[in-house]
């Protein structure tokens, strides 16, 4: 539209696209265009319509109205087959690859060309996979089984698989979701290389810095409508502006925490060793304190947290609560002692997706609502209190939690533990995959909990989160504490230096 001066030709143009689901307009008069070799980012909160749009482009949804022009050809709808045929490839968040076969086999699965007739020439296949990876500057072992690759490498394989079909448009749906900061750079570099080859990319992500790094243009969606399209060649992109447009009101990316008094040390980890040869981990947590646990993925943060909770085996070490040795060797004991573990992936090990909201909230604290039998009326009433207190959005208490958004699911998990009445909350990536608004709500909740005397140990990969929420930060590196930071020391540089082990003073 106003970008007519763009030098490439338009590969894709979408006009007045609408998609209705019963009772809801998921996409409303959405117009969008994409130039050859451009990276066009889509941002918006969960439910803004991004996924609906890319599902229309990949042929999984039939648009209610509107038209799609691809390579000057008009389509009123696409099927998955047609979308692929004309050159649209989508890489979804979900894993669709086969874990037990090699990266190379996965890349060419379904499009095997070598020795076509009956047998596959694995040598040639590996060579082609390697060549493809090299072209994009990726260093992976294409012969390794997919399941043994690291999350970033798995993501690369998914993207390479899409590229193997030589698409004109590549759609990446939150490709960096499971990544830490260092690895996000790998993906953004790769995407830049891909677009330099002339492939157009539609890129969806929540992390605004990443968007600004990679985007040519950014389109903001809200409630199924386009809010604005920004061009990086005009005014430089600004994360504050983008966030504001996403939520429809100004947001602070750095949450400003209310200060409150912190009590004495009440929770202590002594001499914790997960492996016989690692150095012991010792730390203490105060009453009402939020202790950040920083570290790269794989540094051992999650394992240490799980070991404290009795859900991961440890070599030795003890846990003390208010001077008493509790050292849980299973979660049953941990929960009895008043410790909660909120894991990173609620779907896998936090929620009962097929159970209604109220049953999820009360499951750990069933003792509060009956001796042998459950007082169902009391259960509903108390569950409702938590739904109101935590501002959980659900049409009813009977709604199965799998139908809630990520942010609301996270709040249900928090409610589950608060209902039990725990004193120590260990939270692993509490805002992973939830939108900006929900994040702020989680931060507010944590601050409120801390000021009411609960202690929170928060594992996080997000710098703003660690820096703005934590009273102290412990940096974990290779299953050991590499730095302890408090007050003004909690800066991005110091945390990063802890990741790398650059700080010698603690040795």
């Amino acid at each position: 539209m106003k970008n007519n001066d763009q030098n490439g030709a338009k590969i894709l143009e979408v006009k007045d696209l609408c998609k209705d689901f019963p009772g809801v307009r998921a996409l409303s008069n959405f117009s969008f265009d994409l130039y050859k070799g451009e990276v066009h980012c889509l941002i918006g909160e969960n439910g803004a319509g991004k996924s609906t749009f890319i599902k229309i482009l990949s042929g999984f949804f039939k648009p209610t109205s509107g038209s799609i022009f691809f390579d000057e050809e008009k389509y009123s709808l696409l099927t998955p087959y047609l979308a692929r045929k004309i050159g649209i490839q989508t890489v979804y968040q979900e894993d669709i690859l086969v874990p037990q076969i090699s990266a190379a086999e996965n890349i060419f699965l379904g499009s095997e060309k070598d020795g076509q007739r009956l047998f596959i020439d694995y040598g040639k296949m590996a060579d082609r996979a390697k060549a493809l990876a090299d072209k994009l500057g990726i260093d992976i072992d294409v012969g390794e089984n997919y399941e043994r690759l690291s999350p970033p490498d798995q993501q690369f394989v998914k993207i390479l698989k899409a590229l193997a079909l030589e698409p004109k448009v590549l759609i990446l749906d939150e490709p960096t979701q499971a990544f830490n900061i260092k690895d996000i750079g790998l993906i953004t570099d790769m995407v830049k290389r891909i677009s330099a080859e002339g492939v157009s990319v539609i890129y969806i992500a929540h992390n605004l810095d990443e968007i600004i790094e990679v985007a040519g243009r950014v389109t903001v969606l809200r409630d199924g409508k386009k809010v604005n399209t920004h061009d990086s060649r005009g005014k430089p992109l600004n994360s504050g502006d983008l966030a504001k447009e996403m939520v429809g009101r100004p947001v602070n990316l750095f949450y400003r925490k209310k200060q409150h008094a912190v009590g004495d040390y009440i929770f202590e980890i002594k001499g914790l060793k997960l492996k016989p040869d690692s150095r012991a981990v010792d730390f203490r947590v105060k009453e009402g304190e939020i202790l950040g646990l920083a570290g790269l993925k794989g540094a051992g943060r999650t394992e240490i947290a799980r070991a404290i909770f009795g859900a991961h085996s440890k070599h030795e070490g003890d846990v003390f609560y208010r001077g008493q040795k509790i050292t849980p060797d299973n979660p049953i004991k941990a929960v009895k002692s008043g410790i909660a573990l909120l894991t990173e992936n609620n779907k896998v090990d936090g929620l009962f997706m097929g159970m209604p909201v109220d049953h999820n909230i009360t499951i750990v604290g069933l003792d509060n609502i009956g001796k042998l039998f459950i007082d169902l009326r009391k259960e509903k009433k108390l569950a409702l209190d938590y739904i109101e207190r935590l501002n959980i959005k659900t049409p009813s208490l009977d709604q199965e939690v799998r139908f809630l958004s990520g942010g609301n699911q996270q709040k249900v998990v928090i409610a589950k533990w608060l209902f039990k009445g725990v004193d120590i909350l260990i939270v692993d990536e509490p805002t992973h995959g939830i939108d900006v608004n929900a994040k702020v709500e989680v931060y507010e909740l944590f601050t409120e909990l801390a000021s009411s005397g609960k202690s929170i140990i928060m594992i996080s990969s997000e710098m703003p989160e660690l820096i703005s929420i934590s009273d102290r930060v412990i940096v974990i590196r290779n299953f050991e504490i590499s730095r302890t930071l408090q007050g003004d020391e909690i800066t991005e540089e110091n945390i990063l230096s802890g990741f790398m082990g650059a700080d010698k003073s603690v040795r």
Partner: protein
Amino acid sequence: MLDKNENKKTVPLSKRFGFLRNQITYLILVILVVSIVATILNPNFLTTRNFFNVTQQISVLGILTMCMALLMISGGLDISIGTMAGLVGMVFTRMVLSGYSITLSVLAVVALSTFLGFINGVIIAKSKVTPLIITLGMMYVFYGIALIVSEGRPHSLGGSFEFLGRAKIGPIPFTIIVYLLIFAFAYLLRRYSKYGRRLNAIGGNVQAAFLSGINVDMHIISIYALSGMIVGLAGLVLASRLGMVRADSGTGYELQALAACIIGGITFEGGRGSLVGAFLGVLLLGIMYNAMNIIGVSSYMQTIFLGAIIVIATVISNIGRMRR
């Protein structure tokens, strides 16, 4: 803003969920249709006598279905319950014939089946092997033991234990009362007890249940044991109703119980499904069999129909998930 969004988003989903819940409505509908068709074809179908006949025929299956339903909701399964019931019936008959008192024999075989269920539970909880494989093996083990106990012949109770399977209170067969009591017990357990709620959670997501501090192994072992205890009762009803017990008297019930659960909307995934659905599943199977008998459908055709019902019911209950 988020709120509006959320509400809008959940409308179609809750509708879909409503469909699943309607499985019960649709089961009742199918039962009514089958009954009406059967009555038109043969008015003898719609008599009190035939009604009690049907319910008496389904009582053993009904009791076993409650075991299966509780296990499936907990994420488990036990296909050894059929031969276990047969073994119970056989041991009981031989004890009675050897001169032991009825009371002692009843207590002994219920203790036996509880123990057998306990064994199943321990192996499944501790080995983490899928219950299908474990209980498949145990199915043969129980059958083999029953064969040994029977010495390969049928044994007649000789009319000494007719009360449980054949007695009537007024016009109502006693077995129906037993079945309804078991159903009520299972229903209360599932809906109102903390134990039942935790079983449900284990069935829904065993990893999350473990991390929520639920003693997963204890719950799994105890529900298999409890199921075994109920199987013992079913075996006694079976022996009493048949009067003449063979080692394979219970064989086949396990798959029918599984079928009734699936027809009733209980899935292999666990964590959900309703006992009322399973109850209606049993009723539907019983009515179908009875109607086909009364109309004069050959027993071979009946088998085909049974299979078809299972397939159709499973497909229907899956429609919600197919439309995505």
